[in-house]
């Protein structure tokens, strides 16, 4: 049997419209079991794949079966069906991007006594440091943004800004773990794996959960950022490489010649079928055969999904691919859109590891370093929002932007040290009311004082947008009913929802 675009569309009616917009090429040479003439594997599978995998269980009764990730119904009507998490490793400075603080100019160089007692890194912190960037209001909502992010400013009316985030740790790793998994320690399941555990996958040919990072170097915390922890391993994120073969072992280093390959596949199919038939059709053996088939489909789908050469020049420009500085990050943003289009549930995008593995960690010179980070990402992030919007995808995709913490309004030379007590993140798309600003920090932008939002609140809100109740999404591990948002009460930030 061959992989048929119509078949794929039928499996996934919600995406019918989208698929039509995608230019399809002919089948690749290496379509694994795909082009087997006599359909040895195919016959039993057509049914299995189209019918059995769509079980419609609610997310709180989630069962990850042998077959993998069946799509499951959310608890409530969802605003979004997928998430793109733009993680800004290192801690972007809120007072230089989203949270203007004129008082910093007035009190430049001063060091309020209260800081001395409470700022944990005060050993090296200097006085208050005004932002070198200029803020202006944008869009109908008049949301202030700095001139470091001119492209995102054009999307002000699409984003909901939370200015009152706080986190537990000013240590990168602990804070990264918390932002990804709701725990400050490593080895806990990530937000993405909880989402996949709860909602399953809408695409049978691609991993449900994808991480796109710098293909050359690992970001801080590396694959811990998309791990499944104690959740079933199938919930783990798959790192797709944005250059070269996207998945390990997608192709053999040295492939058999075509005619040999074809016969090989036929032989394996026969052996697999005979093995199953001699054992009375046990479900596990059907699933094993299905996994071969899925592997074949993935070979094509993963390659196609990441093949951005199919996009127009105009789209490339929109994502900043025409600029050397933004091209790498832009490529990943564009790939994320193509993956979301194909039903991938959650995509995490990471910054380039240049100059370091925590790129937003601007200790040295806030003006120079933050400008550089913005140049690497601003156009691509805005391009992604605009592109999603013009394709009608934004209403079903939740985009989340933020780091593990923010930065202090104090100086550290010309830079800023970590600040965990108040920082900004923003959300856009499915279920979110654009143009909203929620919460506030104190007059210096140091400490979230109004409508404080914890990391668990953020996670609860993201799950809510996907139609999942964070209290109901539980997994039993070592006798505990674990949930993403931990034991402390978490609150959905309803004020930013549409």
């Amino acid at each position, binding site marked *: 049997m061959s992989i048929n675009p119509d078949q794929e569309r039928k499996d996934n009616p919600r995406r019918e419209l989208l698929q039509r917009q995608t230019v399809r090429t002919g089948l690749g040479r290496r379509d694994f079991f795909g082009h087997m003439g006599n359909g040895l594997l195919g016959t039993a599978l057509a049914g299995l794949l189209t019918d059995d995998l769509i079980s419609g269980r609610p997310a709180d009764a989630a069962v990850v079966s*042998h077959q993998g990730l069946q799509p499951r119904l959310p608890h409530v009507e969802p605003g979004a069906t997928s998430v793109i998490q733009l993680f800004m490793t290192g801690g972007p400075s809120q007072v230089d991007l989203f949270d203007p603080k004129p008082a910093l100019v007035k009190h430049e160089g001063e060091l309020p006594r209260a800081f001395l007692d*409470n700022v944990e890194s005060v050993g090296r912190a200097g006085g208050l440091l005004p932002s070198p960037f200029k803020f202006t209001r944008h869009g109908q909502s008049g949301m202030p943004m700095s001139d470091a992010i001119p492209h995102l400013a054009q999307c002000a009316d699409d984003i909901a800004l939370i200015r009152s985030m706080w986190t537990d740790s000013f240590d990168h790793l602990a804070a990264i773990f918390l932002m990804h998994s709701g725990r400050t320690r490593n080895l806990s399941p990530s937000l993405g794996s909880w989402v996949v555990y709860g909602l399953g996958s809408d695409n049978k040919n691609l991993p449900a959960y994808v991480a796109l990072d710098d293909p050359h170097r690992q970001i801080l915390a590396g694959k811990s950022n998309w791990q499944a922890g104690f959740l079933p391993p199938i919930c783990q994120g798959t790192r797709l490489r944005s250059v070269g073969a996207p998945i390990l072992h997608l192709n053999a280093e040295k492939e058999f010649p075509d005619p040999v390959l074809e016969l090989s596949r036929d032989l394996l199919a026969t052996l697999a079928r005979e093995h199953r038939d001699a054992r009375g059709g046990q479900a596990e053996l059907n699933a094993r055969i299905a996994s071969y088939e899925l592997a074949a489909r993935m070979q094509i789908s993963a390659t196609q999904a990441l093949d951005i050469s199919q996009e127009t020049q105009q789209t490339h420009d929109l994502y900043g691919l025409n600029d050397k500085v933004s091209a790498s990050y832009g490529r990943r943003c564009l790939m994320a859109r193509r993956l979301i289009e194909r039903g991938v549930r959650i995509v995490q995008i990471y910054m380039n590891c240049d100059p370091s593995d925590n790129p937003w960690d601007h200790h040295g010179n806030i003006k120079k370093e933050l400008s550089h980070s913005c140049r690497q990402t601003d156009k691509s992030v805005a391009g992604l929002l605009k592109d999603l919007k013009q394709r009608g995808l934004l209403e079903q995709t939740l985009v989340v932007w933020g780091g593990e913490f923010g930065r202090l309004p104090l100086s550290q030379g010309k830079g800023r040290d970590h600040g965990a*007590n108040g920082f900004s993140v923003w959300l856009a798309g499915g279920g979110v009311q654009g143009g909203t600003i929620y919460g506030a920090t104190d007059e210096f932008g140091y400490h979230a004082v109004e409508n404080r939002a914890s990391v668990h609140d953020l996670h609860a809100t993201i799950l809510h947008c996907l139609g999942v109740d964070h209290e109901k999404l539980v997994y039993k591990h070592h*006798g505990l009913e674990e949930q993403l948002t931990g034991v402390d009460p978490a609150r959905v930030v309803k004020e930013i929802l549409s």
Partner: protein
Amino acid sequence: MKLRSTERSLGDRGRVSLLQILIAASCCWVSGARQPAPIRASGTDAVTEREMMMNIFRSFCTDCHGKWKQEAGLDLRTRESMLAGGKSGPALVPGEPQKSLVYLRVNADEMPPRKNLFGDENYAYRPRADDIEKLRAWIAAGAATEPSKVAREHAAAVFPSIGDEGRDLWAFQLPRRPAEPDVHSSHQLRTPIDAFVLRRLESRDLSYSAEADRLVLMRRAYFDLIGLPPSPGEMDAYLADVQPDSYERMIQRLLDSRHYGERWGKYWLDAAGYCDTQGVGGGRDEYRKYIWRYRDYVIRSINADKPYDQFLLEQIAGDECVDYKSLESLTPDQVDKLIATGFLRTAADGTDERANNKVPNRMRVLNRQIEIFSTAVLGLTFECARCHDHKFDPITQRDYYSFAAIFRTAYDPYDWRIPNVAIFPGGISIPKLYQRSLYHRSITPSSQLEEYNAALRKTIEEHQTVLDEKTARFSKQLQRERLTTSKPTSTDDEQPLPSPQEKRQLLEAIDLPEDQRNSPLQKLWKKYAELLKVETKQLEERYEDYKKESPPLRAKISEAQEKLLEEPMVHALFDMGGEPTAVYVLKRGDPRVHGEQVSAGVPGALQQGLEPYQVIKPSGRTDTSGRRLALARWLVQPDHPLTARVMVNRIWQHHFGRALVTPDNLGSGSEPPSHPLLLDWLAKEFVRQGWKLKEMHRLIMTSGVYRQNSLPNARAFQSDPDNVLLSRFPLRRLDAETIRDSLLHVSGQLDTTPFGPADEVEVVSSGEVISHATSKGFRRSIYMMQLHAHPLTMLELFDAPAMLPNCLYRTETTVPTQALYLWNSAMVRNCSTHFSEIVLAAEPENVDRQIELIYRRALVRLPTPHERQRAQAVIADFASRWQEFSADDPTMAHRQALMTFCHAVLNSPEFIYVD
């Protein structure tokens, strides 16, 4: 402006009230007539306040002014020692904070010093403003402390904390040996086990399936006991053995095999949370240099069929059984007892990094270790009781902390040792006093270690030779250049330059080895030593080639040097000695909020009908509390309700793929056991047989239930779709390690060398983690380095678990990435080539015999006539298809055809499933 600490503590207070309600509620639950008298009669709040005061000193000061070190002669552990003070006089003047040095120094931010033992400026662990204020207030109020209390060690008297309702839990009842039930189909009874299993089946009108084919049973038994398939020779011998007890003897051979320990050791290591690295996450995943000894200890013990009670005792308290500080030399058995305590050193421990060496981090190490211990040995989860009384099981929060107190003498957060890796970037060496590894001079090098080190030394030497040769060559060149380009017109008197005559002599001398230069020449050389002196840096500046070639060599040398292992170290656990610090219930699990003091003990609900937990401090020079030894003795009582049940449950689990009851939770949160009577019978039998694992294997594997075939039948499928009642043997996929080992074994690439330091794995640029071959092939998976952050890709794909913090059962997935691996990976392609080469070497001529050998080696059976016929045709077809790519060499085409055929067989489900 409100700042973080106030805001946070306000928030915390909000939470407290909620939790206090919960705690209050659960206290009602445990209260009753048996409520013990509280340790302190009155004034709990004030007492707690004072205790918390001492806690501030313990958190910030006593690393340097405490038990092991009294810097400036000062000890801040007690009020008395503060009054006595140190070199600068009394540290404390009650009622007068402004005269108390301890307050003045802290308030002036002079203490604790920025550069303290485990900290630097960035991470100075400093008291908060409110701590300092508390300190002032405490001194002003007279600096009262509690008289030191020696808590009673006899827990049973102190904590009969659980009411009778707690004891209703079946798993807490003493196991009784149930009578074997009567069954209808008594002809199917092979062992007493069958009576229990058949009884349950007959209640559903089911029975056993037919006995499996001999070869099917053989393959099953091999994978079950040694994790490798039988060789064709073993297969033939077994088929030729027509004695009635051939099956039993085969089982015996497997139990005697040294590979048995490698298979069953792995199950124990999974339960113990074994990992070759620390696993603290992020970029850090340091190598635990000596933990492999513990892995080897487990394999050796299991091979020797060490009784489980002894095995447990050694792992919990081996160090308390050997007075190793008094003994000049230790016997191998005594060394083993120290190594065995590695069982309690598997939890992720990142305290060797400054930022992670605070009291809460240290406590987390102990918490994780307790979680491992309680799930692996007791089949219970204690973790919830760390913050509140257990919601489902009769384990109170006080139970948790008194259980933790058993280990606190070794894992004392106020008297801490860091794991044995020294990773301080600043190159600060860590004094032995603060390391956790145990050293004993009588531990002799093992031959494996000798080999391991010899290989590294060879590498070092080889690179060094190359480097020396390069350095010499370029040095000479530089010297020549200097001599030829220097002009004797220098005005610098101190640096005279050689005359043309001298130059000529020196140029000749360059090529002469030093000892062959005559004395005038040596004198001359000395005269111009400054000119001729060559530094590495100069060579690198001058010669591009040298700059390119030498650093990688140096890197390789230092890398190998770092890997050299010091032999006499043991990754062990041992008591710190001296007066142990007091242990308190921590409210909400927060180390800063002390509740009442507890003494070492075991959960109250687990004491009925048992000898109590009783600590007897071992005599001898090795100062150890005896708390763990008491725990071990308490656990291995023949009637203990959990110890034997948990272990027989595990043995059953690994034979049938499903345990009789959830392995990590025998508490009330789990489903009831599928065969409760069988579980108890097995537990009693296990103890009766002397806690011997091998006896249990024999018993289980000779039972009818084990010898069934795995074919489903429609009726059983209806009434018991998941085969919980075992009306057939469950079809199972091989686990990750067995698939890898079998691929290597079948293709003749398995290096069966046991033991020793783990084989390194490599993270290649694609992100794949691969293993490397030794000179004899690849070693078994259990000897591969198990990295937290980078598990071997092949094993990870097939569900080898991460240690979180341990693993009692594996999740099994069937995902496309497994298919991609088997089909496309270089490893499986290589195995196919080697496999086909072996077949060709053994059967060079006859294709039919080649086919037969492939089936026998890979699938442990003969091909059917139909399969033979088809294989012939397919191989011929392969050959003809390869032909056009094989340069018209028919032999080559056939070789490749055979390789492709082997590849398909290794990919086939039959290879990775066991009937």
